[in-house]
């Protein structure tokens, strides 16, 4: 499918030829009564033309804040540092209008809940064409024509009629298609889908993911899929970044991340998914405890208090991303061993998925 995973080239690999989107050292700091917190800390990745990146993590890992930080949509009082370069233009150096122009037209964003991202009292057609009216000055009949065409592209039936309808007249899946149409209205170079399918039925989720993928291929866009579900990104991304407590703890080409991940949190996350191949009533692997509060981050490895492989060294000093192979980086003091064939743990996601 998407995964023409030529080693080294895809997704988060550093030093890949001119990246479409390049993020380096992105940090978002929020002031709180108890002192500053960093929901996103030192995040770096690159996304190539026509490539798909998955960003995976649990709630509170900072993935949604990362999407907002990319767009500069952070709460008042927050400070952003680091650099975001979209198609050769460094966004961090832009301000006000210029920034809006580059970001608003260059990056499309699709959120989890279409009912809150759509305005309930405005016909969907006007919401889809808002961006092109603002950024491109396309108005009136021309905007309508493009809007109806966008609805058709995202698989909304009877688009001319739907164009004048309100969000409540559509099903959840259709509404999400509408928000995708709106995100595509300005021909973005990158589309970010932030848990865009989480609220949908699995069947509709699959349809929407298929749709995103086909749109991405047709338009050669960059696509960023943010999700808590490793299953969603498994067959649909070139690269994956796993986030925990605001940091990227592992990133690499998709196949490498599943087969040869080193970070213990990545391993635990993969193991904790219920699988259809397992017998019913088996004890599921879990991760003990809960992610740390941003105000009380453990020193050193932030996952250490929940990690079954933690060593005393894990809690000493900040932990850097280590390069394992070209394009594969992880943060771990006591990483998982990945021998060629068998190891101390089951190789997850083997070709058949059957575990003996």
């Amino acid at each position, binding site marked *: 499918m998407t995964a023409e995973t030529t080693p080294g080239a895809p997704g988060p690999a550093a030093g890949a030829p001119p990246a479409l989107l390049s993020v380096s050292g992105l940090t978002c700091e929020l002031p709180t009564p108890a002192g500053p917190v960093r929901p996103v800390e030192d995040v770096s990745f690159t996304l190539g033309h026509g490539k798909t990146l998955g960003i995976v993590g649990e709630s509170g890992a900072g993935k949604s804040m990362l999407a907002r930080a990319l767009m500069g949509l952070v709460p008042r009082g927050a400070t952003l540092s680091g650099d975001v370069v979209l198609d050769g233009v460094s966004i961090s150096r832009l301000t006000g209008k210029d920034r809006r122009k580059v970001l608003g037209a260059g990056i499309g964003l699709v959120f989890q809940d279409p009912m809150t991202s759509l305005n309930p009292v405005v016909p969907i057609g006007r919401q889809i064409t808002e961006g092109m009216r603002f950024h491109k000055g396309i108005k009136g009949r021309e905007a309508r024509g493009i809007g109806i065409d966008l609805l058709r592209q995202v698989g909304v039936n009877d688009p001319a009629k739907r164009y004048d309808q309100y969000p409540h007249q559509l099903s959840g899946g259709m509404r999400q298609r509408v928000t995708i149409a709106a995100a595509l209205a300005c021909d973005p170079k990158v589309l970010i889908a932030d848990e865009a399918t989480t609220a949908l039925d699995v069947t509709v*989720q699959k349809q929407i993911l298929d749709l995103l993928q086909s749109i991405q291929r047709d338009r050669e866009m960059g696509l960023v899929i943010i999700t808590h579900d490793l299953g969603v990104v*498994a*067959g649909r991304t070139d690269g994956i970044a796993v986030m925990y407590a605001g940091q990227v703890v592992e990133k690499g080409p*998709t196949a490498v991340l599943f087969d040869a991940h080193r970070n213990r949190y990545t391993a635990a996350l993969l193991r904790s998914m219920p699988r*259809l191949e397992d017998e019913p*009533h088996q004890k*599921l692997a879990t991760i003990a405890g809960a992610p740390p509060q941003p105000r009380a981050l453990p020193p050193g490895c932030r996952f250490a208090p929940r990690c079954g492989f933690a060593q005393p060294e894990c809690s000493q000093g900040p932990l850097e991303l280590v390069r394992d192979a070209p394009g594969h980086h992880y943060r771990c003091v006591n990483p998982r061993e990945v021998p060629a064939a068998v190891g101390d743990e089951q190789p997850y996601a083997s070709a058949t998925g059957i575990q003996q």
Partner: protein
Amino acid sequence: MPAGAPAAPVLEVDHLIQRFRVPGGTLEAVSDVSFTIGRGATLGLVGESGSGKSSIGRAVIQLPPPAQGAVRLDGRDLTTLSKAELRDARSGIQMIFQDPVSALNPRRRVRDIVAEGPAILGWPRERAEQRVAEILTQVGLDPAAFGDRRPHQLSGGQCQRVAIARALIVEPRMLICDEPVASLDVSVQGQILNLLEDMRGRYGLSMLFISHDLSVVHAVSDQIGVMYLGQVVEYGDADVITREPSHPYTRGLLDAVPVPDPHAALPETRLRGEIPSPMSPPSGCRFRTRCGFAQDRCATEAPVLRPIDTGQVVACHFPLHGGAAPAVQEPAVAEVTNTSGQGGH
């Protein structure tokens, strides 16, 4: 599977029909569904939103009572009980919900939330207090540390633990779980599913487990019923349903489950479109408008549940295996029966 006569089922749902009045008419959310659940057994109900699975759960616990049909708990028909009788009977059947945070009263302390059932049943204070501490410990919450907290001081997973404690403190025979892990993170999902399994073993609980996620349902269920537009379209042992689905809809649901394996080819999306409005279900087979195998017969004749050789029952004229349905069929007996009578392990 025990030989000989199975013990009397804990829950019998008999030709249950549930209707709701909505603007523009009456909506039939559940159309003639029957099943039984034995002691310690878990029946999983799976389907898309609008399939009627939650309506079944609520009708079983009489919230609201079904429009038609019987719901028997230990042989006693809940639909015929008076309000006072029902209040007593509810200690035998409890429910937990999808959003554990909003299911708990935000102004009350964990201790008081959990003690609600005993208070209604008029337990002596000492016994109630003792049992609150016991059940909180069993669900993995230290009573000393958590007893005086309020829901907003807890994580989603901890709130679900409190909800489980509240449901199980009165030692019900039957627990209805309506999407209990849908709003939880994957790592916490496993904790809650393990806890439910643990409680099932400890109390010999029977469970009706409702979820849209087949991989979750599969992890805890003995049998799985697949629902579409108010009807059960396929039913059988959990691993038969997930390994050898016979109904095209079950196949579609399975294909849509995201598989955490980058090497597995993405299955073709056969299940197109969305579930039609239950206000006007399609004639004949209700699934035919989304089915890739539909033929003329499907539009005129409603398929009935019938057993096939792989062990499950399926309501389909042209199932994926098990052979086409005979031309003339017996009058519909939509009897879905839990056969194992007891839990796995």
